[in-house]
């Protein structure tokens, strides 16, 4: 009887043990099934993903906005022969079907996804030792910075321009924060969009290093520059000033254009020798379907060209004289004829701080910043006469003109048009004529927000931006 009892006991015990055996190990079913499948799990995996710079992480921004902005034109023949409707529609602020601008949307959200996979991976990562903490933080900061940059770029194309009074209800962009591709997309409000961008950047603030190995990675000066840029697009000049200043405190070096050959095809990028010291963060705009509009076919408005003073080196370094007398752009901050630089540079932070000072009424500080920049653009064979302004208003308008001239083809003009539209002093109406049809873009038009491609709406059921 005793034996029987003990057998009963043992068999029951075996059952219990067997059940516990697997039940206890929670991650038992988490093991990788295919051992060769590389699931990103290590810090170096995550960093490698963020360093996938040439095809995903540091490309594909603002191209559509640049096409839609002013200061340049394409010939009617070039417009007609464009292979897809995306560039034609962007150029004429239209929605002629089929409107299949998937490239910009898809590629930018792919960048968001990379960042999300990294952030998700980091949240499950167990830091092994003290030494890893810094690397971990750096990577996390980069991912947040990247995501914010991508969201901001998307917001300049697809979110309604920021308006404090209506931002809670204005349609923003879908905010995707998960690495689950099956999750449904919904459109956030403009307020939510900007909140997320700022939240990501503020979180990254204390994680990023002062100096990155390469400016393809996020850094503190770049982060402050981006924050300033974001606040500027929100017409929040107080914060813009704060962060532009912070950025300049850390990095303020400018490139003396006198050091550049007039025959150069580019100004030079972060990876040229010598490196362009102005670059805080490297990013380019390029999408295959619209490349022609921004490279071979892109012709600069003569009126804009004429604004460059003969002693201004940008007149020769930024432009190429074509045989037929037209002007093409060549002032790229990167050694490429197809990938135009849209990253953050010190020239931009100077101009942002200058504009903010002017708007705050500090004419002297504003003009100092402006002159610091222009001095480096001026031919050193002549004496540079600093620009001056009689009052803040004068300073502001001068700074805005110089901003347009300095930051040509940097993906920023579209954002400037969007924000300056609300100001009676700077609003303007753009017109284009193609095939005998006049296209007009009026200030405050719904056309300042790009329509969301139909496929995306079909997939997600999200609403189209009103007007389209």
């Amino acid at each position, binding site marked *: 009887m005793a034996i029987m009892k003990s057998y009963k006991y043992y068999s029951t015990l075996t*059952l219990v043990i067997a059940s516990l055996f697997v039940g206890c190990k929670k991650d038992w*079913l988490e093991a*990788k099934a295919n051992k060769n499948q590389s699931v*990103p799990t290590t810090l170096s995996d995550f960093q490698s993903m963020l*360093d*996938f*710079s040439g095809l*995903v992480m540091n490309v594909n921004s603002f191209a559509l906005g640049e096409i839609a902005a002013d200061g340049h034109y394409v010939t009617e023949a070039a417009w007609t022969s464009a292979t897809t409707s995306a560039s034609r529609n962007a150029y004429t602020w239209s929605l002629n079907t089929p409107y299949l601008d998937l490239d910009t949307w898809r590629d930018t959200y792919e960048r968001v996804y990379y960042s999300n996979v990294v952030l998700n991976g980091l949240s499950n990562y167990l830091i092994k030792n003290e030494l890893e903490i810094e690397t971990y933080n750096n990577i996390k900061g980069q991912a947040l910075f990247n995501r914010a940059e991508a969201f901001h770029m998307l917001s300049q194309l697809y979110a309604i321009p920021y308006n404090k009074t209506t931002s809670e209800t204005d349609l923003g962009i879908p905010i995707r924060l998960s690495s689950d591709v099956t999750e449904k*997309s919904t459109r956030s409000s403009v307020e939510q969009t900007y909140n997320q961008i700022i939240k990501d950047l503020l979180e990254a603030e204390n994680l990023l290093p002062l100096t990155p190995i390469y400016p393809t990675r996020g850094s503190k000066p770049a982060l402050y520059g981006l924050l300033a840029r974001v606040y500027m697009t929100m017409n929040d000049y107080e914060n813009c000033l704060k962060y532009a200043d912070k950025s300049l405190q850390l990095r303020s070096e400018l490139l003396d254009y006198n050091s550049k050959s007039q025959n150069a095809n580019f100004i030079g990028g972060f990876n040229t020798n010598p490196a362009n010291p102005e670059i805080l963060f490297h990013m380019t705009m390029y999408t295959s379907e619209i490349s022609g509009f921004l490279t071979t076919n892109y012709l600069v408005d003569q009126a804009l060209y004429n604004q460059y003073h003969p002693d201004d080196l940008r007149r020769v370094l930024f432009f190429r004289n074509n045989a037929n007398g037209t002007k093409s752009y060549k002032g790229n901050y990167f050694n490429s004829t197809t990938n135009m630089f849209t990253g953050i540079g010190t020239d931009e932070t100077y101009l942002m701080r200058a504009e903010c000072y002017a708007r705050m009424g500090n004419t002297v500080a504003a003009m100092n910043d402006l002159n610091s920049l222009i001095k480096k653009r001026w031919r050193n064979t002549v004496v540079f006469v600093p620009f001056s302004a009689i009052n803040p208003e004068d300073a502001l308008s001068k700074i805005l003109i110089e901003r347009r001239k300095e930051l040509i083809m940097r993906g920023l003009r579209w954002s400037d048009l969007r924000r300056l539209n609300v100001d009676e002093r700077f609003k303007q109406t753009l017109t284009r004529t193609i095939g005998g049809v006049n296209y007009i873009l009026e200030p405050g038009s719904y056309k300042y927000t790009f329509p969301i491609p139909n496929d995306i709406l079909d997939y997600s059921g999200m609403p189209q931006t009103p007007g389209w």
Partner: protein
Amino acid sequence: MEAAHRAAGDGCETMKKMKCKKILRIMKFTTLIMIVCLAQVSAITRAQINLDERKAPLQKVLKAIGKQSGYGFIYSTDDLKGTNLIDIKLNNGTVEQALKLCFDGQPLVYEVNDKIVKIKRKTEPSFLDNIIARFKAIDVKGRVVDQEGKPLPNASIQVKGKSAVTNTNSEGEFEIKGVDEDAVLVIRYVGYKQLEISLKDAVMPLEIKLNVATGELEEVKVVYKTGYQDLNKERSTGSFVQIDNGLLNRSVSTNILDRIYDVTSGLNYQPNTSIARSPITIRGISTINGELKPLIVVDGFPYNDYNLESINPNDIESVTVLKDAAAASIWGSRAGNGVIVLNTKKGKYNQQTKVAFTSNITQGAKPDLSYLPVMTAAQSIEVDRLRFKTGEFDVFDDVYTSIDYFPALSEVVELLLAVRRNSITQAEAEAKIQELTNNDVRNDIKNHLIQNTINQQYSLNISGGGAKMNYFGSVGYDNNKSSNIGDNYNRLTLRLENAFRPIENLELRAFISYTQNGASSKGSYFPNFIPDGRNPISSYSALVDQQENALTIPFVYRSAYVDKLSIPGLLNWQYKPLEELQNVNNNNKINDTRIGASMSYQILSGLKANVQYQFNKTLTNGQNEHGGESFYTRDLVNQFMYTNNGVNIYPIRRGSIIDYQNFDQDSWNIRSGLNYDKKWGNHNVTSIIGFEASESDLNQDIYRRYGYDPETNTFNTQVNYESQYNIRASGGGTSVIPNRDSYSGTLSRLRSYYANVAYTYNERYTLSLSGRQDGANLFGVRSNQKINPFWSAGLAWNLSNEKFYNLAFLPYLKLRATYGYNGNIKSDATVYPTITSGSLSGLTGLPQADLTTPGNPSIRWEKVRVLNLGLDIQTRNNVISGSLEYYHKDGLDLISNINNDPTAGFSVYTGNNASIKGQGIDVTLNSINMNGHFKWLSNLLFSYNVEEVTAFDQAPTVVTLFQSAPYIGKPLYSLYSYKWAGLDPLNGDPRGYIGDKISPYNTVVGSTSGVPNTKPEDLIFHGRLNPSYFGSLRNTLLYKNISLSFNIVYEFGHYFRRPSIRYDNLFSNWGGHSDYALRWQKPGDEKLTNVPSLPATPIVSRDTFYERSEILVEKADLIRLRDIRLSYDINKVATTTSTFQNIKIYLYASNLGLLWTANKKGIDPDFGSFNIPVPRTISIGLNLNF
């Protein structure tokens, strides 16, 4: 007469057993077992009684008996008053028989005591008698088994004269309380002879053995083994097929699965899996990218199908195939394609040692090369001459062209070129060409590359057991010589299993099995020399000369280059196919070891706890040696060899190149659970609940060694895989030394909880429910945590057990219905995002990683939803029995590519989004057509199965449809073609249609501004690639000890594409289909033929259009004579002096060819025109049991 013999035999056996029993008792074993048989008779009186009376008074008859036997009778005459008159006729009877006849139906009882017969009146039992009876009542315990000692669950046991019926449990055990100690038990079981046992003097517990009613005529099997439990057929609701040992051993094969094709209802076997299909499907296919094969289970644990050859078929007792949700859902996530459960042979308790020996030898014919329709030598020469004339080969006039590129040219072209450069005379060339005309390379293949197959199989097993333990041990050896010369296969299997009952209610089992498989080949594969256009060889090529010496054929490099090559240090670069046989050695060894143990303990009556564990290690060692003299090695050495300052450098060293492939797999399974089987009154419950887990860890190490030197047993360990070398005769190409090293592995883990319950009321109504929850490391956390169970519910109604049921001709009628979900797996779906790293960023030079797949944390099991309606019947005397089943089988949540919202970051990901709707019918009919001395039995299987894709995210294109991509609304694997508009009368070009307009082939296959001219909906949809109707008809003829059976199989409702000439292949490989002869040659031919003309230069799209046109689509319907078996049994009865209990000798012939097929072109649709049908085989075999 036969019955009498058997009865006598049983009697003898019983006596022996009783002696045994005494010995056991003396040895004080705690459990005593007694075998009781109906024919048991006590002391037999030898006196012979002869009586012949009609309406005689009892007294008179008794006097006659007394006179003849010398027995005395004591009775009161009063007692005899009013007794019945007797009709009696007895010749040479016994006293007992006579008495029995006299007192049958009389109100009297009698008692025999030493030749005195006391007679008295039967009395109604008094109150006191009843009290006494109570005291005399005993509890009866016992077990009912079949002839082989296997328990018979649900056998009915009735006390004679009482109405109550008790049934045995799944172990065949029963218990009846308060039975009169003189009572007689009647034991009944379908398919077995009814047995009556007197309890008088019986020893508890009873071990009752039932005999099969009338041999093979009766339905023997009744228990379905699901791998988790044994289910009584009477009380099952699901769809099962049971293949018993007799049927398994009907055919001869090395592989166990070969024995269930064409005898399993609903199972379709396609030998030729040219498209992505499983060779074996059960009830069709209900997945797109998932696993297609049924789950194979051996003794309760899943078995790797790739390792199935490790099973010795002679170790398998029976096979159960689980087809519907109720049957298979206990296997949960892996049951979607059906489950094949293999049950190994076991030892039995209290069984004398039994030895069985099996041996068979199978001889197969050589593959029939004449089946292949290839061009004749003359035709190939004709084409060579034509092409030569067009100037196509003018570039080869210079043997050493400046471009260092020398592709192989056919022999005739080389001869013609040689004439032109005056190497030989025109006459010499013509003479040689004339010689070639008489060649047919297929003759050389037949004589030197193929052989008759010989498969030998031997198996010996021994089993037996005592009261507390049993054992089964076996050893098997197979040796197969394949039709490809040099290919050999051998297998050694060992298996030992023991069971113990150390204490009451506890059973322990342990087994170990070991298999060693060895396959070797000489690397030559005869189909590679068939001049069908797919291999670079002409019909006129010769592999040997008149003296049978191996000859060179052009291969890779042109002969003119190779023959003249005079670079010092370069190895001979010629290719002699027959010499390769001596220089290549491929060996593959698999060692499979399994050990397992289980324990089951009866906790309470009806409640059992089980724990089962199994560990398996499989080591596969493959070694392909390209000898130093093999073409492969010489070629590589020559390609890389270069000269530096007059020194020959060999980046690839001379010596053998050996490719190793080592797989190492460790896996384990554990299962623990509770069984509860209980019967009370009219209620019967059978249930299991448990948990299981398994892990399989596979590592593959593939590597190559260069420069093996057998003298020193060394390799070249300094291979430079980094440098780029200039490659000789490559047209200026460079290459690194091929690196074959790779290391990879998979790990699969599965964790499940399961429960299954069946409740039967009154032997009429059964309700079954099952549920299972699976988790695997193939799926994300989300899926594993989510309760996503597989479940089933079923109902069965034994209509014939109802009181109102009165169809005498149909004594058995049962209705069944089940519904539920099974699962399926796709192992390469990714849960997590995966990256590809290793490259450097062009921008920064930093290592970068590309996200290749997005991963899908929501990915989950594919589901297969099955509805099954079944009807089982059996007519009187079993003349016709069978079942009819109708089912719906839908694949849901199928894993496929899904177009996704690009906002997610990936526009396409893998997920559960596609679905398939399927349905079908399975009919099984067994009939006894003649049942006398000469018996004729038939077994008919008929299946219908179709399916249709109902959801699939990727839109088809014409190109994908020709690759059988899923298309909503169409069967999963469909055949499409271009509409045919005949040949162009001007030039013999094939033509099709654009809309209604006859158009040239290049317009049909072409595009207009990026949009294809032909859209998916413009293609002709012919139908399915796999049959929608299939089955078999097996007839068995029995006469005395001779049995003859043959199986005819059929398939209908599918299509195939017949090959024809492809000119692009003809141009590059100098051979092709014999349709060449039928080609269009001059205007007017288009009325007679559909074979396009020979083009001046090959045009791939032209050949492809023709190949995909409707003109080459044929119906695949066929009827095939699968096999014939003739066997002769010698029973122990016939040769009492022999030690053998049973000897069986048989002849078995299989692959006997088509009886009929829809196409009239001599093509076996299962093999198409370019695969040779499996040759006929004939086996002779012997089974000995002693």
